[in-house]
């Protein structure tokens, strides 16, 4: 607790929760790609997640354990980000003249905005495809019919654009986060430093390409 009170400790927590969230985003994307296999494979995959580790554990228990972990990671990530933002606002005094940033990337400067927008999109996305709440969810939404729900949702033009934009912002967020976490966790050494940026570039590219391909595939009629 004393560790988390410090700003360096909060950044460490942001790095660790960031890794958990990156892991989720990657697994989520890989799972989604099952939509390309057709033949109800995405529905069976969703069903499989609900029965993960059954009969060792009762049905849906593993899923709920993972969901709980994710919610905790999200809350810690957001709480640390918000309190560090407040700390930085207090510590900073604005320049009155021009300001010429030398190396800060678009991604690093917009982490707060990309983070907030992705979080709001996440709630929208849950309402759309997990909870089936109108007007976010498409007409005829049915629990368990993942592939049909997805195709119905993304065949709405505005919704497809929303998913594409949100995933591009997620990519921007990951582009800085997947590099930044190495610094926050104290992982730097001349022998692997150049791979840290490449890892972040590759990771964000894979996530964006995988996720954005789906609304495009629905739109072009390849899926659904």
């Amino acid at each position: 607790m004393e560790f988390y009170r410090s700003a360096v400790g909060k950044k460490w927590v942001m790095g660790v929760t960031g890794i958990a969230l990156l892991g989720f985003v990657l697994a989520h994307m890989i799972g989604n790609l099952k939509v390309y296999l057709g033949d109800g494979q995405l529905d069976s995959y969703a069903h499989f997640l609900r029965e993960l580790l059954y009969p060792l554990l009762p049905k849906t228990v593993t899923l709920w354990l993972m969901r709980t972990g994710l919610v905790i990671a999200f809350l810690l990530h957001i709480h640390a980000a918000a309190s560090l933002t407040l700390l930085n606002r207090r510590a900073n005094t604005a320049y009155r003249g021009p300001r010429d940033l030398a190396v800060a990337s678009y991604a690093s400067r917009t982490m707060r905005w990309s983070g907030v927008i992705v979080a709001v999109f996440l709630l929208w996305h849950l309402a759309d495809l997990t909870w089936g709440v109108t007007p976010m969810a498409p007409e005829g939404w049915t629990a368990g019919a993942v592939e049909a729900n997805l195709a119905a949702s993304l065949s709405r033009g505005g919704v497809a654009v929303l998913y594409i934009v949100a995933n591009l912002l997620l990519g921007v967020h990951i582009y800085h986060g997947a590099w930044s976490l190495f610094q926050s966790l104290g992982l730097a050494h001349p022998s692997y430093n150049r791979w840290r940026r490449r890892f972040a570039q590759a990771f964000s590219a894979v996530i964006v390409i995988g996720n954005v391909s789906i609304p495009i595939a629905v739109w072009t009629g390849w899926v659904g």
Partner: protein
Amino acid sequence: MNITLRAWRQAGPSDEGGFETYQVSDLSSDMSFLEMLDVLNERLTLEGLEPIAFDSDCREGICGACGVMINGRAHGPQAATATCQLHMRSFQDGDTITVEPWRAAAFEVIRDLVVDRSAFDRIVEAGGFITVATGSAPEANLTPVPKETAETAFDAAACIGCGACVAACPNSAAQLFTAAKASHLNLLPQGGAERYVRTERMVDTMERFFGSCTNHGECEAACPKQISIDFIAMMNRDYVKAKVNSRGNA
């Protein structure tokens, strides 16, 4: 060469302050930025006006006294250069140059371009030293130091404490300064004994005054000594280890 200078003027910490515009003529492009200010100040003094207050000392880039924001860059447009080593040839004839003091809540403006950087002294007081019994010097060859370690420690020791890292940071974080001051001791045998307690105390003191690091990398780009943000990662790691291992006597 002739330039137009927009300089920040502020009579004291409680004064609101603002930009004043001056025409500075007949400059040599071989003058340093501070010599340009000297020329202007001489004229202002002769005209019975108050000269522009700014910090400087060695004027050869090794003391850390000088440092101002020039056209939105800490120490101006040239990389790895303190303000005193920046020459007017870095600008074009007829340019308008805006000069402003370092801005951070912890760096109060004392007058014009001079800020109070004593928060840095608080950080160094917290752990930027080695506790050893004085007496006759030990035999140097008894504690071998690998060449790479000595070089890395020296890279950190190059910090002149000018404050450009804080000035350039959008969060006003002092991570690069603190990491440099901790690392140049932490890496060597004499300083290594207090590595974790030093890091813990210096970071905790730093956070009383400054913001937190979001890994923009602006500090490294602004540093006149090109100190690497690798030292920040090293400090972050040591801080975590210190908190895990601490026996509560920090």
